[in-house]
């Protein structure tokens, strides 16, 4: 499966990649939450994994994946229901990327602050 190049190609690939990534994480997250049935000590031990520095960096990736998937989804919905916007679809994609960057910079800073002691 392949679309004709350009920004549409990239948004389409990124939508699939972030979608699969978030689904895989969702399954892991259901598993770790389910293990709360083992009791406080075991659950606290398992959930501490989220505080490991490598995991915190991956959590920023998770946030970025959900945010991109959401923004790109909004763009798809806008174009699906207001066909006139198709003329602006390239500009819509650039607006989406701009929103993504503007949100992710403070989010990454706040999430990584404890790791780097900022």
């Amino acid at each position, binding site marked *: 499966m392949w*679309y004709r190049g350009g920004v549409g190609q990239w948004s389409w690939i990124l939508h699939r990649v972030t*979608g699969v990534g978030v689904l895989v994480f969702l399954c892991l997250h259901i598993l770790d939450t*389910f293990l709360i049935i083992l009791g406080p000590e075991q659950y606290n031990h398992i959930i501490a994994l989220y505080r490991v520095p490598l995991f915190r960096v991956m959590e920023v990736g998770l946030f970025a994946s959900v945010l991109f998937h959401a923004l790109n989804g909004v763009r798809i919905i806008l174009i699906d229901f207001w066909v006139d916007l198709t003329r602006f679809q390239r500009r819509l994609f650039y607006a989406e990327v701009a929103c993504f960057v503007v949100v992710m910079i403070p989010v990454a800073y706040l*999430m990584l602050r404890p790791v780097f002691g900022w």
Partner: protein
Amino acid sequence: MTTSLSYSSPKPSGGFELWAWLFMRLSGLALLGLALGHLVIMHLLNNVDAIDYNFVAGRYVGWFWRGYDLAMLLLAMLHGLNGARTLLDDYVPARRRRAAVTLLYLIGAVFLVMGTVAIVCFTPVTAPHS
């Protein structure tokens, strides 16, 4: 079917596929609030240093957050499964597609049950002081 100009899936003409197409868009909008809200609450308003057994126990005293999490779990899993089905349709050879989709649904059902049990049945025991 018309050629998609939006680089999204072309709108199906009817039947199950049309409902699936519509579901992806509606659940996507709901998850925009639910999933991003969940991330903001857990990683920005709180952070992973604060999240432990007592934190969950405190959140799950009432039914509001259980309801929130249950809605998010159901919508996210169905949205994800339907998305994954689309990928299997595109990348798995026709003769193995049916088996692949069945396996996908089975795995999804197991996780959906596990998540539901955790949210609905959780009753905190006295937690050790951390």
